[in-house]
C-alpha cells in the first residue's frame, strides 16, 4: 500500500511539473491551478506514505536511504507549498516539481523494507536532529530552485529576450529576497542540526564529532553559508552571485548524500555501528 501511494505521488509530481512548465509558456492561467493542485495532491499522498511507513516501522521513517530521500523530497515540496501561500511563485514550482520527482525516483532506486531501529538510535534526539537537519536541507533546496529561476530570469533580461514568458516569472527582487530569506532560515536550521547531532553523538557514542563524510560536508556547507550571509550583509552580495553560490551549496548537499550514503555509508548512511 505504502509504495503504491508513493508511486501515485511520483506520477503526480511528474504531471505537476508538466503543468507548471506549461504555465510558463502559455498565457492561460489554467495550468497553474492544475499544477499546484497536482503538487498539493502529490504532497498529501506522499505524506500519507511516510506516515504509513513510520507507523509500520514504529519510528520516524528516516533510517534507510529510501526513507531519507523520500522524506527529503516531501519536505522540499512542503516548504515550497508553504512559501507559495504567501508569494505567488509558480515559476519556482516548475523547478520544484521536477526536483521532487527526481528525488522521489532516486528514493525508489534505494528501495528497501522497513528496518528495525538500532538500540543506540532509540532516543528523543532522533526526531529533533532529523527534523532540523532535513528541514534545513529542504530550505536550501528551495533556495536552489529559486536561484535557478533567478539566473534564468536574469539572463533573459540581460540578453533582452523579453516576451510573454517574462511575465510568468516573479520579479528579480522577489527572487533575490526569497533566496536571501531561505538562506537566513536554512542557516540556523543547519547550525541547529549540527549542534543537536553533536550533542546526540556525545550522549550516544561519547564524542561530539566523528569526522564522518556527512559531518564534514555539513561543516563545509556551514562555512559556505556563513560566508555567503556575511558577504550579503556586509558587502551587499546579491543577485547573480548569491544565486550562483546557493547553487554550489546545494551541490554540496547532493555531494554529501552521495558520499555519505552511497560511497562511504556511516551513521548517516544507515550504518550505525
Amino acid at each position, binding site marked *: 500500500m505504502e509504495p503504491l501511494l508513493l508511486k501515485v505521488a511520483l506520477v503526480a509530481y511528474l504531471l505537476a511539473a508538466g503543468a507548471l512548465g506549461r504555465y510558463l509558456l502559455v498565457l492561460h492561467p489554467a495550468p497553474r491551478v492544475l499544477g499546484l493542485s497536482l503538487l498539493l495532491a502529490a504532497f498529501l499522498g506522499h505524506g500519507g506514505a511516510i506516515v504509513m511507513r513510520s507507523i509500520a516501522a514504529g519510528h520516524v521513517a528516516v533510517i534507510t536511504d529510501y526513507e531519507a530521500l523520500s522524506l527529503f523530497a516531501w519536505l522540499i515540496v512542503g516548504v515550497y507549498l508553504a512559501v507559495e501561500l504567501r508569494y505567488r511563485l509558480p515559476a519556482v514550482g516548475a523547478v520544484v516539481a521536477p526536483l521532487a520527482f527526481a528525488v522521489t525516483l532516486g528514493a525508489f532506486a534505494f528501495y528497501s523494507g522497513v528496518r528495525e531501529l538500532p538500540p543506540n538510535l532509540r532516543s528523543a534526539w532522533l526526531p529533533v536532529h532529523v527534523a532540523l537537519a532535513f528541514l534545513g536541507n529542504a530550505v536550501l533546496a528551495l533556495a536552489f530552485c529559486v536561484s535557478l529561476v533567478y539566473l534564468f*530570469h536574469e539572463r533573459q*533580461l*540581460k540578453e*533582452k529576450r*523579453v*516576451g*510573454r514568458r*517574462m*511575465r510568468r*516569472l*516573479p*520579479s*528579480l*527582487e*522577489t527572487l533575490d*529576497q526569497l533566496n536571501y530569506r531561505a538562506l537566513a532560515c536554512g542557516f540556523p536550521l543547519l547550525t541547529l542540526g549540527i549542534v543537536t547531532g553533536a550533542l546526540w553523538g556525545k550522549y550516544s557514542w561519547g564524542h561530539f564529532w566523528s569526522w564522518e563524510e556527512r559531518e564534514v560536508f555539513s561543516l563545509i556547507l556551514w562555512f559556505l553559508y556563513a560566508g555567503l550571509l556575511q558577504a550579503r550583509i556586509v*558587502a*551587499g*552580495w*546579491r*543577485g*547573480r*552571485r548569491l544565486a550562483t553560490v546557493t547553487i554550489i551549496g546545494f551541490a554540496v548537499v547532493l555531494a554529501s548524500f552521495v558520499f555519505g550514503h552511497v560511497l562511504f555509508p556511516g551513521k548517516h548512511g544507515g550504518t550505525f555501528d
Partner: protein
Amino acid sequence: MGRDILIVGLSHRTAPVAVRERLGFSPADLPAALARLTQLEGVHEAAIVSTCNRVEVVACVDEEARGLDTKITEFLGAERNIARDEFASHLYVHCGRKGVRHLFRVAASLDSMVVGEPQILGQVKEHYEEAALAGTSGSVLHRVFHRAFAVAKRVRTETAIAGKAVSIASVAVDLARTIFESFADKTAMLIGAGTMSEIAARHLKTHGIASIVVATRTFERAVALAREFDGIPVPFDRVAEYLKLADVVIGSASASEYLVTPALVQEVLRARKQRPMFFIDLAVPRNFDPAINALDNVYLYDIDDLGVAVAGNVEEREREAVRAEAIVEEEVERYWRWFASLEVVPTIVAIRTKVEAIRQHELEKALATLKDQAPRHRELLDALTSSIVNKILHAPISSLKRQDEHGEELDLIASARRLFDLELPPSPPDDEESS
C-alpha cells in the same frame, strides 16, 4: 520637365541605433542643412525628417535628374561627417508613387517601431514646418505633406490602430516591474526631459514610485518638471552624485557623449550595496554606455531593445494595420492620379488640343454656311482663327511654362485645368483641415 518626389533615408527597420544616432540632425542644424540640400542640382524642394527612429530626406526633384540618390547620400555623409560605407548600406530610396506611399505610411505611424504610436505625426509636422520656415519647401512638398497629415488623421479615426498601440514608455515600466517587485520604496531619476521620458515618469508615478529626481540641462526646466511629478530637481552637473539614489534611471538628454559610464556605475553600485539598477535609454544618441549592461545587477535597455519588446504582442494591432494600409493605398492612388495630372507639358498639350478642337469645329460650321467656298476663304478663316487662338493662349501658356522653370505654384496648373475645364481627378486632395 516634370517633378518627382524622392525619399532617401534610413529607419529603425534598416539601421541600428548606433547608425541612427550618428546620422540624426538636431533642430539647430536643420535650416543650414536644408539650404545646402536645395543647392544640389535637380533638387527643387526638400525637407528632412529626423527622429530617434529615422532620418529621411524628402525632396521634390527633377523627374529626369539622374543619380540624385547618390548625391543625397553624399550630402548626408558630409553633413554628419560619417564615411559613406558606414551608413549607405542602411539607406532606402523611394521615388514617385512609392515615395508618396512611404511618407503616408510614416505619418500614419505604420512604419513606426510601435505601430500606431501617436508621436510620429507631430514629429513629421515639426520637421515639415522647419523646411517651410527655411523656405526649402514649395508647393509640391506642401501638398504631399499636408496630404500625409490628412491620411494619418483618417487612419487614426477609421482604425483602432492608435488605441491598440503599446508605448515604449509603458513597455519600459513593464520591464521595470519584472526587476522590482514594488515601486513603493524606489526612486526614479530622469536625466534630460523628452516626451517619452515624461510619459515613462508618469507611468512610474501611477505605479506608485516613491520619488522622482529630475536633472535637466536648464535647472528651471528641472524645477518645473519636478513640480509636476512631485519630485526633486537636481543640477545637471551633479547627476553622478545623485545616481546612487536611483533604482530606475531614464535618459533622454541630448549629449554627444555617454553621460553614464561603466566606471561610474560600478562606483555607484558599491555605494548602493549592489542594489539593482535599471537604465532606460530613450536618447538618440544614447546617454548610457552600452557596456554597463554587462555589470552585475544592472540592466540597460535602449530604444531598440524596447522596440523589440514592444513588437512582442501585436495581433490585434496587425489586423488594424492591414486596414490602415488599405486606406493608405487608396490615398496614394488618389494623390498620385492628381499629382501626375499636374504636369506642365501635358497640361499645355491638353489646353492646345481642346482649343484646337473648338476652333476646328467652329471653322467647319462657319465654312458650311458660306455659299462661296473658295479655297481662299478657307485659308483666310483658318489663319484668322489660328491667330486669335494663339494670341489668346500665348499669355496663359507662357505663365505655365514660366512656373515650370521656377518650380513654384503647383496650384496654377490646377487652376488652368479648372479654367479650361480639363479633366481633373475626381477629388483633388484637400489640405488637411486646420488642426
